[in-house]
């Protein structure tokens, strides 16, 4: 790309907050018509960089040039006016208004001082058609799926003259079809010469859509690479600054465990809507990876076998005795623990201290009257924090102030404090940085080696494949197959998970 002038260029940029250096002398450039990925662990400076180019943070030192001219943004509005627009993970549109109203929000066409509805609708129709989106502009935004809402947010972002579009984790709530649709739109924008900054945790997607990758670590620039010339393992290593040997998958010695009787076995388990007629056996020392698309029933299965949802039909046997598992309190007493995919709404109690979070389930099992002494609580929490590597070590901090990976470890510690026999983990690595992800994967392996039966659910098939001894494949609310992960590769798994009418991979 040498010879072409960068559309946007950040040179020697630093952002400091008091003594904290969030971005340290970083240079970064984007060319017209390219999709550029910004990679790094949480805390690497990705958000700061995005905020610096979208006008939310001011640069402490360094310059930002757009189209060759030095610019200075003191607000997101100024950046927006210059043609830099961002769509964030949490959609900041108004679900109660129509699609057309959302697209025009804040800059509605006026006629005689009133909003010109017709022109507004025509404009929206045009924008949506340009992107090839089949959405009725008059429909209420909130009635559409998250994916469509996300696309409408993008339509809104590009409905003005946009030069640089920032997409921050745009795919985290989309399923594979929806991601494909988003990528089609991204390619369309690329054709128009828009520079797109694509930030995502999903390596798969980065490799599929991006032309170049800029890697940040600890607020500093590691380097800028062409996607085609950077091996994945090298990318991960650059992000972490660690030896890639740590990420080799665990090779287990004992696969002949199959003869072991199941600790928990479910037969014909059905909840509505969610999972139908599911049979599954969980044996001690074994990890079952669950692979399936969003809505395939992966979470419903987890909730059905851990007493979170009440069964419509079917039986669950624990150690060969048919048991009622709901409410979760009963399942926990039988040694069956569930960690929800929604850490914030169904897991962590952010206002309570790390200590209280870790000891909560144990305290709940003991009941109100048999309180765990504070000294004992601290001891327990400290030993789990130590064992799982929870940082920082200040256990009196509200748990909500920890990073995503550490919050997830707190959730795990809470369940492990009960000494469970079965651990069902729903998306335990979602939204956390790569380092913490690997730690959690390794932890799951250790727990299985110590005799726990683990169910590991993840939207990332690679991870499921890496962690699972057996892989349960779910489609449309049914378990289609359970097979050993040995001999299964990513493409084969993808083909099994994808709908039959979709071409494999």
């Amino acid at each position, binding site marked *: 790309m040498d010879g072409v002038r960068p559309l946007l260029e950040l040179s020697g940029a630093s952002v400091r907050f008091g003594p904290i250096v969030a971005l340290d002398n970083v240079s970064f450039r984007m060319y017209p018509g390219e999709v550029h990925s910004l990679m790094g662990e949480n805390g690497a400076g990705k958000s700061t960089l995005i905020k610096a180019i979208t006008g939310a943070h001011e640069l402490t030192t360094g310059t930002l040039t757009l189209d060759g001219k030095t610019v200075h943004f003191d607000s997101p509005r100024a950046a927006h006016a210059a043609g830099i627009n961002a769509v964030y993970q949490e959609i900041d549109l108004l679900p109660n208004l129509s699609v057309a109203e959302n697209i025009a929000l804040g800059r509605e066409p006026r006629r005689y001082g009133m909003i010109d509805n017709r022109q507004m609708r025509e404009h929206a129709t045009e924008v949506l058609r340009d992107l090839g989106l089949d959405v009725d502009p008059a429909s209420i935004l909130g009635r559409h799926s998250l994916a469509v809402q996300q696309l409408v947010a993008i339509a809104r972002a590009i409905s003005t003259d946009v030069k640089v579009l920032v997409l921050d984790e745009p795919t985290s709530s989309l399923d594979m079809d929806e991601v494909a649709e988003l990528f089609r739109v991204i390619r369309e924008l690329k054709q128009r010469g828009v520079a797109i900054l694509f930030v995502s945790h999903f390596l798969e997607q980065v490799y599929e859509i991006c032309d170049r990758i800029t890697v940040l670590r600890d607020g500093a620039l590691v380097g800028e690479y062409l996607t085609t010339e950077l091996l994945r393992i090298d990318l991960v290593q650059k992000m972490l600054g660690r030896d890639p040997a740590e990420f080799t998958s665990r090779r287990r010695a004992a696969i002949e465990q199959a003869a072991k009787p199941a600790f928990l076995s479910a037969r014909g388990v059905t909840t509505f809507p969610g999972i139908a007629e599911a049979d599954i056996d969980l044996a001690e020392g074994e990890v079952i990876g669950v692979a399936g698309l969003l809505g395939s029933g992966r979470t419903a299965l987890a909730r059905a076998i851990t007493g*979170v949802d009440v069964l419509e039909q079917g039986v669950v046997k624990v150690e060969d005795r048919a048991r009622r598992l709901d*409410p*979760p*309190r009963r399942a*926990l*007493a039988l040694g069956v623990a*569930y960690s*929800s995919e929604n850490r914030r*709404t*169904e*897991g*962590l*109690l*952010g*206002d*309570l201290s790390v200590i*209280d979070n870790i000891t*909560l*389930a144990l*305290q*709940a*099992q*003991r*009941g*109100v*009257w*048999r*309180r*765990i002494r504070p000294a004992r609580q601290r001891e327990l929490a400290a030993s789990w924090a130590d064992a799982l590597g929870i940082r920082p070590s200040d256990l009196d901090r509200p748990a909500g102030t920890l990073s995503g990976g550490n919050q997830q470890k707190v959730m795990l510690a*809470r369940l492990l404090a009960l000494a469970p026999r079965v651990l069902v983990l729903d998306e335990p690595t979602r939204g956390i940085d790569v380092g913490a992800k690997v730690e959690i994967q390794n932890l799951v392996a250790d727990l299985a080696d110590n005799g726990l039966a683990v169910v590991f659910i993840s939207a990332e098939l690679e991870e499921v494949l890496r962690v699972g001894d057996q892989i349960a494949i779910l489609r449309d609310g049914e378990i289609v197959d359970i097979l050993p992960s040995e001999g299964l590769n990513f493409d084969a798994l993808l083909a099994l998970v994808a709908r039959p009418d979709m071409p494999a991979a």
Partner: protein
Amino acid sequence: MTKILKHRLFWPAAALVSLLAVNIIANQSFARITMRDGQLYGALIDILRQSAPLMLVALGMTLVIATRGIDLSVGAIMAVSGAVALTIIDSSPSPGSLGTVAVAVVVALLVSLVLGAWNGFLVSVLGIQPIIATLVLMLAGRGVALLITGGAITTVNSAPLKFIASGYLFILPFAFFISVAAIATVGLLERRTALGVLTEAVGINPEASRLAGVRARGIKWSAYVASGLLAGIAGVIYASNISAADANAAGFLIELYAILAVVLGGTSLMGGKFSIAGTVIGVLTVQTLGSTILFFGVPSAQSPVVFAAVVILVVLLQSDLVHRTAKRVWSQVRAEFTSSNQQDTEVAS
């Protein structure tokens, strides 16, 4: 110093102290406590004595609010409790005997407990919104109380009953000891058992708590039962104070004053983290404010306006926004002062 400033009870306590200070500055007799016949008297002692009903109600309200609920029926429960107790004493052949009063109080408290359990049932089992669930009893309760008293204000002449609100134990009012006992009981339950942390967990996030195996339903229910029982005790104290069961006046608007006291004490209406000590401070603030208005001779028709104005002031004093703004203004003023000083010295040199 900053540690003290950051303590969550600092601003509630500061509000109470400044309110007391205003009174003392305006009239030194406010702080005067005299000993007569081995009993202490004075404005401050009155505040301790008179705050007992609000203290009990606010303690219950704190637990309910911590579970993310609200109990609007406490005033009505006070009325029912007073009506039950007074009707029993009134219909007894010996209204002045300790036995009669004991029976009357126990029955009144049992009835209050049942009413609290009813609220808890509506909220925790049927899942009705707390404000609606307790509104039912708030509206119906006074009718029930009137039904019990037969529509009249039942008055009795009973020394043991009178003692509850007006009597002295050692050198302090008996009602004060009831307050202290209630604070100690609730405080110990919260600290010495797991009730405190489990209540906070349920208040912060009921679903996450359920998934962690917490009996969220039981915890919520028990908060309403406690609130009902404490309101019942408050009802007995109120009835004792006037030796009568007044179904309309007993605990009138006390639910709102109790909510105010809880909030002044720093507990959020959003549920979760709560503070018993904060509520105690909040109650004393509300009560002191009431006394202050009387003390300053504000005509009773206008006293609510003054009350409201001071409440706004106190709430602003505790607001983070105000603290931040004040800090900013202060640092600006200081910066300007130092820079103008520098200029002066430059000019001088």
